[in-house]
């Protein structure tokens, strides 16, 4: 029997289906993904500054993505009711608080109202949070509903929300990584904002993180003889990692670019695709935006 044409068609169909599904359709959906607005109305993302963009090439060339991911996961969200002001009718507000949280005595409710603004309630569903907010508002208090992403990555401080397609629009290449031999770097610039920390860590990881398993990247640095005065950018290393007297370690351009790139890694803007509410200290602007985003 001659199955040839049939088999060829079947294989062609399988590959074509996969190609339409995972190449063409995503191209249509994401191929011209525009900049977006954050919930606070700022344009996002902005292209990385030139040195950081060069640093991405150093990141690529040395295979940093072999060990480091740039994708924060999120398991869900919780909704917070944030009380910002008790208003004029404290007794009514305290009564509502007591009704919503039966164990709360009136004395405790009063004390709570003295320590505003604060997050008061944390619930899984939006309806409960909005119901509570409405009752508090009706009683004259100022309250808002906040969205807080949750999950182990977020609890570790690796990010405030999950990573989304919008975070990578201007990068080339885009290297979200496949493995976490080291920590996630999606927000490393926000987490570790000191450029000198990054220099020391790249040069001798164990100088900054005891027992680090990261290999040192000494080839990104230059060991040179001290001139009349030490270079201002020379690394201040602990004695165990310092060069012998009369020498100093200075970052090469690659190290400077890589550090600039690492500092530019901040994917924590609140987006409609991945909403989160700015933490309490600046609650006035976020209130309306957060309300809109829960729709």
């Amino acid at each position, binding site marked *: 029997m001659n199955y040839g044409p049939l*088999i060829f068609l079947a294989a062609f169909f399988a590959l074509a289906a996969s190609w339409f599904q995972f190449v063409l359709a995503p191209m249509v959906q*994401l191929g011209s993904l525009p900049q977006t607005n954050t919930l606070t109305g700022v344009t996002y993302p902005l292209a990385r500054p030139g040195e950081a963009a060069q640093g991405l090439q150093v990141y690529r060339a040395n*295979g940093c993505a072999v060990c480091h991911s740039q994708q924060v996961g999120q398991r869900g969200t919780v909704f917070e009711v944030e009380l910002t002001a008790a208003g004029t009718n404290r007794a009514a507000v305290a009564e509502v608080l007591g009704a919503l949280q039966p164990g709360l005595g009136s004395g405790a409710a009063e004390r709570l109202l003295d320590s505003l603004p604060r997050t008061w309630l944390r619930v899984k569903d939006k309806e409960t949070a909005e119901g509570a907010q409405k009752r508090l508002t009706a009683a004259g208090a100022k309250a808002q509903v906040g969205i807080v992403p949750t999950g182990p990555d977020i609890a570790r401080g690796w990010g405030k929300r999950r990573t989304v397609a919008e975070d990578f629009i201007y990068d080339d290449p885009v290297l979200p990584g496949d493995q976490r031999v080291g920590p996630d770097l999606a927000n490393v610039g926000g987490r570790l904002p000191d450029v000198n920390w990054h220099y020391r860590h790249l040069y001798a990881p164990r100088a900054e993180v005891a027992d680090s398993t990261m290999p040192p990247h000494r080839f990104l640095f230059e060991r040179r003889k001290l001139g009349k005065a030490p270079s201002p950018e020379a690394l201040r290393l602990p004695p165990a990692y310092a060069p012998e007297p009369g020498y100093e370690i200075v970052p090469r351009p690659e190290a400077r670019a890589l550090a600039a790139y690492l500092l530019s890694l901040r994917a924590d803007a609140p987006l409609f695709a991945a909403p989160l509410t700015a933490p309490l200290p600046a609650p006035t602007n976020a209130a309306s935006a957060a309300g809109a985003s829960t729709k």
Partner: protein
Amino acid sequence: MSQPRASTPLPASGASATDLSCRLPGLALFLAAALWLLFGSVLALLASIKFHTPNFLADPAWLTYGRIRPAAGGAFLYGFGMQAGLAMTLWMMARLGRTALAWPGLVMAGAFFWNLGVAAGVGGILSGDSTGFPALEFPSYAAGLIFIGYVLMAASGVLAFRQRREREVYVSQWFLLTALFWFPWIYSTAQMLVVLGPARGVLQPLIAWWYSANLLTVWFGLVGLAGLFYFVPQAAGGELHSRYLAIFSFWTLTLFGSWAVAPALAPLPAWITVWSRVATVLLVLPLLTVMLNLHGTLRGRCSLLRQTVAQPFFQAAIPGFAVALALRILGVLFDAGGLLHLTWFAPAVAQCWLYLFFAMAMFGAAYTILPRLAGRDFPFPALVRAHFWLALLGGALIVAPWAAGGWLEAARESDPAIPFLAVVKSTLMFLRISTIGELLLALGHLVFLVNLGSLVARLCKGLAMTALAEATAETRPAEVRA
């Protein structure tokens, strides 16, 4: 002095023409594949030692972990895997079509470009030109050479299929023919949209994932299964149990294998990751049908096996296939938080698939085909057994610790109370065990190369002796037997 040729146990007419036409390309491709295999496993061993002491070989940029691990992967995938797979494909296309390999010179030219491409690619990664995308790291200048080499070699395989004298098409032939056409499509798509004219944003990693799923699951799966479906029934002295089950396996593997693309946490629209997860689970269909088919083929015939040196490799490749797919499916089913694919579990699954299934099948194919091509047995049969045990133990000592370590890693990583450094350190013991595995693999590959090299050397010596005998015989015609 013409003993060597006289002693060659070449089979009669058709096979002999096939084997003779495949001799040079087959031996050259397998020899180059063995060289890259050893080279890649030495790099992988060096990378693994860095988990014992991160300071090991840290000063030269080209030996940093982030370069040698992708380089080891590239040498294995393109240097060994695809090259050995193509060698087996070409021989099988000619053999099953009862024809000679079309244009062996074309294959040799293709092999030249291919190996040049792999060398440029591995060198490019080591010198910092990697594209950064897993399985697609070779820079564009290497990719061009690779593509030309592939097209030249594949053309010969397709021609052999066109010229076949046996009109009945065997299962393995469509597996291989499909694989031959699959690679140019996926490679050109990936090169154009990821490397040459990069697409925007996350499309780049998505298309790279799509490419690597197609290459690893579909191409390597099809070629490995073509080997098993040919050599296992042959060794068992019977026929493949069911052609229809094989059609079903073929269809489901190509369809779902090429859909099981994106990992769970990837920053992509949810429909892509969900679709990928569903497709991964549906890979249970090719898993079950292939196992049923091979079980039916071997039922009641196991006592007939174990007659050739190659047989243990095929016997190991069958569970290798099953375990790799089963682990992959379990990994998706029990990965509630999506963290598992970011741990050592994912490389464990890939290693199981590529080594314990695919490479084992290719070793079996090499030990079956090459003696036919060379017209003589491998010079050191004991080394074949040593290679088998080194490969099996080494592979298991990599897959098992990585899988177990990865599973624990995911469990600990999902508890934010455990600091991440503690999570990393808890995997170190497993990684250090896998260094033994890498060492055993490297030793096994050395043994393979020595055996194969001696086979080729003896063949060359034999051919030279014969040629010499023939040349000298002309001057003294009286001494030639009447």
